[in-house]
């Protein structure tokens, strides 16, 4: 049994209470949501903190998936399992279900939250890649009010986000556009392992041509990477294998993987290419009502 260093524990009763506690306890405090990233780090004594503020009682307030005209809102305490099982979400953005099927295992998915996933800011984090792909924005609240940031602004480096010491991530907002679909591809060494590389794609069509396309890659740089050059290259084009290949090549060029136990940098670059093609191919097939 791995045992953490001593800490004090508080259970927040609501968002305002959580913010008040953060305000009072300062940088010595950390929120705990599902705990599947934070607790292992505490046990390994990589995260040492004095106060743990448990926000699981906020699940009622912050656990939701709301589909509205033009936008979809996901509360930060929504658990992986809820994301996996939500039909409206899968209908709007099949990429979520694709990703959730390959994130961790049922035990982790029962507790882990989208807020915790994004705030952990692990370079290999899958939901970050999903949110980057979907051009999501994040609503953050602190004692001095709320603000909304884009995914690009949200990430500041590995394990670093725009969320301040006294702030909490409230919700993730995703624009909904017609005639689009999305997909997620991941290579892992073993079921439940973090990605060697993973890739999300979303495509919107206008008749026969692509009106917009986005790709988000995980595990090939300090944070999940959106690749604007791919969007530029694809807009106004008719989908084809050659076009996917072009996008794949752009992905491979525009990422900065490093060699580690999960794989060599060359291999990861190759996967960025291969998975970009696959995710784009699957997204367009879905728009045409083909395949899963």
């Amino acid at each position, binding site marked *: *049994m*791995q*045992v953490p*260093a*001593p800490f004090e524990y508080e259970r927040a009763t609501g968002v305002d209470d959580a913010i008040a506690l953060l305000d009072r306890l300062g940088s010595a405090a950390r929120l705990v949501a599902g705990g599947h990233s934070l607790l*292992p780090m505490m046990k*390994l004594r990589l995260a040492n903190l004095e106060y743990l503020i448990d926000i699981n009682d906020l699940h009622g307030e912050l656990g939701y998936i709301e589909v509205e005209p033009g936008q979809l809102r996901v509360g930060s305490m929504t658990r992986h399992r809820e994301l996996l099982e939500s039909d409206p979400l899968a209908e709007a953005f099949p990429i979520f279900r694709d990703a959730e099927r390959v994130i961790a*295992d049922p035990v982790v998915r029962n507790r882990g939250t989208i807020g915790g996933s994004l705030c952990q800011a692990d370079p290999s984090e899958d939901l970050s890649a999903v949110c980057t792909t979907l051009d999501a924005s994040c609503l953050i609240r602190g004692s001095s009010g709320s603000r909304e940031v884009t995914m690009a602004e949200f990430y500041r480096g590995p394990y670093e986000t725009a969320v301040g010491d006294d702030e909490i991530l409230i919700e993730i907002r995703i624009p909904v556009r017609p005639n689009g679909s999305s997909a997620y591809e991941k*290579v892992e*060494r*073993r*079921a*439940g*392992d*973090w990605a*060697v590389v993973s890739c999300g794609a979303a495509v919107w069509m206008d008749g026969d041509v692509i009106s917009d396309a986005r790709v988000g890659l995980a595990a090939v740089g300090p944070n999940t990477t959106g690749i604007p050059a791919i969007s530029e290259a694809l807009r106004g084009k008719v989908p084809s294998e050659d076009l996917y290949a072009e996008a794949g090549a752009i992905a491979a060029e525009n990422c900065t993987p490093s060699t580690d*136990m*999960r*794989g*060599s940098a*060359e*291999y*990861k670059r*190759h*996967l960025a290419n*291969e*998975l970009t093609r*696959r995710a784009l191919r699957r997204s367009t097939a879905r728009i045409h009502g083909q395949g899963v």
Partner: protein
Amino acid sequence: MTVVEPRPLDSFIDNDEKPIGYGRMLRKEDPRFIRGKGRYCDDVQLPGMLHLAILRSPVAHARIVSIDTSAAEAHPKVKAVVTGAALAEKGLAWMPTLSNDVQAVLATDKVRFQGQEVAFVVAEDRYVARDALELIDVEYEILDPVIDARKALEPTAPVIRDDIEGKTDNHCFDWETGDEAATNAVFDAAEVTVSQDIVYPRVHPAPMETCGCVADYERVEGKLTLWSTSQAPHAHRTLYALVAGLPEHKIRVISPDIGGGFGNKVPIYPGYVCAVVGSIVTGKPVKWMEDRSENLISTGFARDYIMRGEIAATRDGKIQAIRTHVLADHGAFNGTAAPVKFPAGFFGVFTGSYDLEAAYCKMTAVYTNKAPGGVAYACSFRITEAVYLVERIVDCLAYELDMDPVELRIKNFIQPEQFPYTTKTGWVYDSGNYEPAMRLAMEMAGYEALRREQAEKRARGELMGIGVSFFTEAVGAGPRKNMDILGLGMADGCELRVHPTGKAVVRLSVQSQGQGHETTFAQIVAEEIGIPPADIEVVHGDTDNTPFGLGTYGSRSTPVSGAAAALVARKVRDKAKIIASGMLEVSVADLEWQKGAFVVRGDPSKSVTIQAIAMRSYGAGDLPEGIEGGLEAQICYNPENLTYPFGAYICVVDIDPGTAEVKVRRFVAVDDCGTRINPMIIEGQVHGGLTDGVGMALMEMIAFDEDGNCLGGSLMDYLIPTALEVPDWETGYTVTPSPHHPIGAKGIGESATVGSPPAIVNAVVDALKPYRIRHADMPLTPSRVWDAMQGNPKPPV
């Protein structure tokens, strides 16, 4: 005799035939485990018990300049802080390893691997003990580490073991076997020779329960009771007596339920000794349970053999000789657990299942700044490495000759009439009938159809591979004439008592870590004396309550203790027969044994059951002349030879050409372990071993960076396969009994771990044939398979 009885794959399996003897039967121990009533070391709670935590070296190689423990000692809940210097005063800073080397209990001079024990704290609870470690201040002078075994013998390499008088290099030992000149002569004249560098990377057994113990030294009685995660409680007791100077009759080692061993729990680890010292110093029971990272970084690893395999053959595929050079990485201390005369374990069986003209192996073992150990993880004393080598090099030959790998193997098998067969390295294979096992596996797999499917897929650019391995193991150590561990012969005791009401207790020296001994051994005794297994209690894992023996590892329990159990039961039956003759008033010669009763020959109405005999043996009334009361016996069994189980495995993989991910689609395993006692337990052992094999072949490796930091210190980094990585296992069997074993049984515990990695690797390499790949080293992670597909297969770092 070979019986070929494939089980229809879709048949319903009744796992409770309620046998009185051999047969499928649910495990007697399982209700306890399923209902949470197992009792493991960490469940032991004693009044006043304290907790121990170990401070470990953060670096691979450094001189200890100073240790300041004052802050830790000042903690109000800390009861003791002990350093290597303090142990040295008691002569306990170093302890012998199972290979006649020494290992530091706590480092005094230098640390020699990351994770090495430096000091320990005993405190009121586990949390305080762990927190107090952070209050100990150690100053290290960092030294260059030796991480790559290939560089360990370079003259400029820093000397790791300067604790050994006069040591000027990192050489550990040299070992050779076979006939070098004869082998070289065959190679020089051979039509075809193939040479291949093959690495078996360092892996870890990673049992679900980590190592640990509770030491309770009772000062008034002077008695030490040690609950410990030990696969060999009796051997440990004797070693504690020899090392710590405690009298052996005042030491009781209890191995309660054990959550997996795989060899990881054979050695005596510094933590156990620390707990004993902690209990002696504080006068209180002391518990030490290592955490997952400690288990992965500091306890007995496995493999780490850098091999060159060479094979000589005729052009039409007759294998003539195998030659191999091995560089063995033993880590900082030689902690290999193997019979003393076998520093490379049973690696000598690298000649495999083939009839050769000559064979030779030369091995050099070196010290590196890595955790000690060296033989663990269900390896049958290095047979895993040997089988991997031969089964890979035979496939390399098939590749060069463009021959079907099955055809090549069958052509070279030792033939049934050649048994007992003495190999060119001196091992006497007891019995075998290889071709029927191979053919059964092919039939179950649909081998010809698979090859056709493969050809079609290749034409379409798809990557499908079919891998074959055929292994022979040498298990059941061992004959006392040449096998001992630190002077303790490898014979096993066994004791059987039948109570007046006909219920029995059998006491074993071996210890179960999940193998199902409480069922298998009850069945062995039941088969011999006809008492139902439910009425036979199996007692094990407590040195005060069981006879001496060397423990469970190397698939030795059934070959050695299983024989002892059968023979002790026969001894009881012989006595029962004499008592029965008195009860029935006939001569012994007129009695016939029908399982469970003696019957008068020719008059079936006259009989007595074993239960009635038992009551009589303790009851009133006279017993036949010269017969003592009671119905019990005791024995110590010294095996005449090892047993040689074998098997034929076929693996089918698919590789995604775009991502290089390997999927094991099918796996057919035909095993021959001689007489089958409980087929369900055998299948369970095989399933587990095959899963291990998938782990080693595809994902497991304890890697180090160049500074010697262990990169496999958590289960996030050291991957273990899950149900999702393995197919439905298809198992089959043949039965070729061991001629010298009393019930014809051979070991099965490690067969699948030994036999499956080469089958999987052979399948992956076969799938990559379109890329002209002849070999790729484990672990075959997607990245490493992709490297191979780029024509650039790399040895693991």
